[in-house]
């Protein structure tokens, strides 16, 4: 910390060094950005991490294969289902366990609902960051209905912990299908409203078009994934490339854009929401009958070896890497979180822009800080 404070002065070139965060409304958490400014032009950005490190990876080494999943809800708390699913899939891969079809369908529907609510929250927060307060309330209104589905079926709103090795914890609630269909028809009618209030807005377009350009080559070399990379034209949707759960049963498009700027990233997410709605609609009436959980032993022991599973979270590719030495708890766990790689491209995107653009770039990368710093 001493080094950080000592550097806080005007440099020899006349650049002004300021600290943005760790307590700043536009950083969505405890992200600390050190910004070198020449007037209002950003010369250099340096993210500082470590304010919310909870050592989830190390902690998992002392927990059993059933128990370590709950902690991943606290990584990307807006996509807790998908994080839990990734861990469950990795353990199933190690056990070579066949998951029942019903569990696969439930997992996929819940994951897409999660993606929908995460993108809705992102849409509201982007408006908030760029100076429009009203979209936030509209986004939260629709998100609340999805949260109610989660609460009714899974028992919690954010940290659901509903995925267990072998399937899902409980069968779906009797109201689940009816309520999901209601919410979907409601949300479908609201997309036009979202476009009216934000997408065509002149202030919003001026602040996002041509701002924070990321080229295809840079996106690949920085390991950027998710909607941020797809806005630069990189095809990287894990749901499409390496289908898991029930994604091979559904028809959906991978949205690609060659814009590479904040507006392209915005449009990708807006269209992805529509794709998520269509995926859920294809699955919701066709949930097969049968078991919702495969039989597993009381104490799960993975065979010796290394297991890796990738999933697509709303922010990009999440990888779970488990090294097992044959014991009842993992020898080593590593999470490849999407936010960390996406953040690494932020200094590149922000360089040469204005400090107001930095806020726009940060909000369209969709940073979730506990995911970056586990």
């Amino acid at each position, binding site marked *: 910390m001493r080094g950080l404070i000592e550097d806080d002065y005007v440099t020899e070139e006349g650049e002004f060094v300021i600290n943005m965060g760790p307590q700043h409304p536009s950083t969505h958490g405890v992200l600390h950005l050190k910004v070198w400014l020449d007037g209002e032009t950003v010369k250099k950005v340096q993210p500082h991490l470590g304010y919310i490190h909870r050592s989830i990876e190390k902690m998992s080494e002392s927990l059993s294969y059933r128990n370590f999943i*709950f902690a991943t809800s606290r990584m990307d708390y807006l996509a807790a289902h998908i994080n839990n699913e990734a861990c469950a899939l990795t353990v199933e891969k190690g056990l070579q366990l066949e998951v029942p079809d019903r569990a696969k369908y439930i997992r996929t529907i819940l994951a897409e609902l999660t993606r929908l609510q995460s993108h809705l929250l992102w849409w509201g927060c982007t408006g908030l960051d760029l100076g429009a307060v009203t979209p936030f309330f509209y986004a939260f209104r629709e998100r609340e209905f999805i949260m109610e589905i989660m609460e*009714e*079926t*899974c028992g919690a709103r954010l940290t659901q912990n509903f995925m267990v090795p072998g399937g899902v914890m409980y069968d779906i609630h009797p109201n689940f299908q009816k309520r999901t269909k209601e919410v979907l028809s409601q949300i479908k009618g609201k997309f036009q409203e979202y476009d*009216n209030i934000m997408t065509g*807005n002149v*202030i919003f377009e001026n602040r996002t078009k041509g701002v924070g350009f990321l080229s295809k080559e840079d996106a690949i070399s920085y390991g950027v994934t998710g909607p941020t990379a797809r806005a630069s034209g990189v095809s990287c949707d894990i749901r499409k490339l390496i289908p898991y759960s029930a994604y091979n049963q559904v028809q959906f498009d991978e949205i690609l854009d060659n814009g590479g700027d904040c507006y392209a990233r915005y449009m990708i997410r807006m269209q992805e929401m529509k794709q998520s709605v269509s995926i859920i609609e294809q699955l919701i009436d066709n949930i097969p009958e049968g078991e919702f959980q495969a039989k597993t032993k009381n104490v799960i022991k993975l065979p010796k070896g290394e297991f890796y599973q990738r999933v697509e979270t709303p922010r990009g590719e999440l990888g779970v890497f488990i090294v097992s030495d044959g014991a009842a708890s993992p020898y080593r766990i590593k999470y490849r979180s999407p936010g960390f790689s996406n953040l690494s491209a932020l200094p590149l995107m922000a360089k040469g822009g204005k400090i107001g653009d930095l806020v726009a770039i940060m909000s369209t990368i969709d940073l979730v800080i506990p995911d970056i710093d586990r």
Partner: protein
Amino acid sequence: MFLKEYFGTIYKSVKSLLVGMRVTGYYFTHLDEIKTEEYPDNRATLKMFDRFRGEVVMPHDDNNEHRCTGCQACEIACPNGTIKIITKQEILEDGKKKKRIDAFVYHLDLCTMCNLCVVACPSDAIVMAQNFEHSVYDKKQLKKILNMPDSKLMQGVE
């Protein structure tokens, strides 16, 4: 040509703002579409979902009997060390010695409501309650003993 573009931009900008304002105006005049719940004013009518995870409780029947055998499956399943079961030896009527629970200690301040203990319990002795207003002035009150005083194990539960 320049002037045409200039005024065209102004027209488009004003139009986009008006389109946005129409959405806000619609909700300003349609008050019945507001979905806000006014907590805590609605506490009397607020009902949580059956599966909502508020805290772990141990149901007792009318004879002050519970279903916990003290097998400690929940204690092992808990990732945080929230549950601590203290057992005792009890001499039954026929002279046999049996393990029974003395205290089922539950630390609400450590609990993450992950539901793993409820899933692990072989005799359905503990369930999740829907109560969510847990704030207290003293942290000690968050340490709870779930089995009631002088409670007994239900007949037929092993």
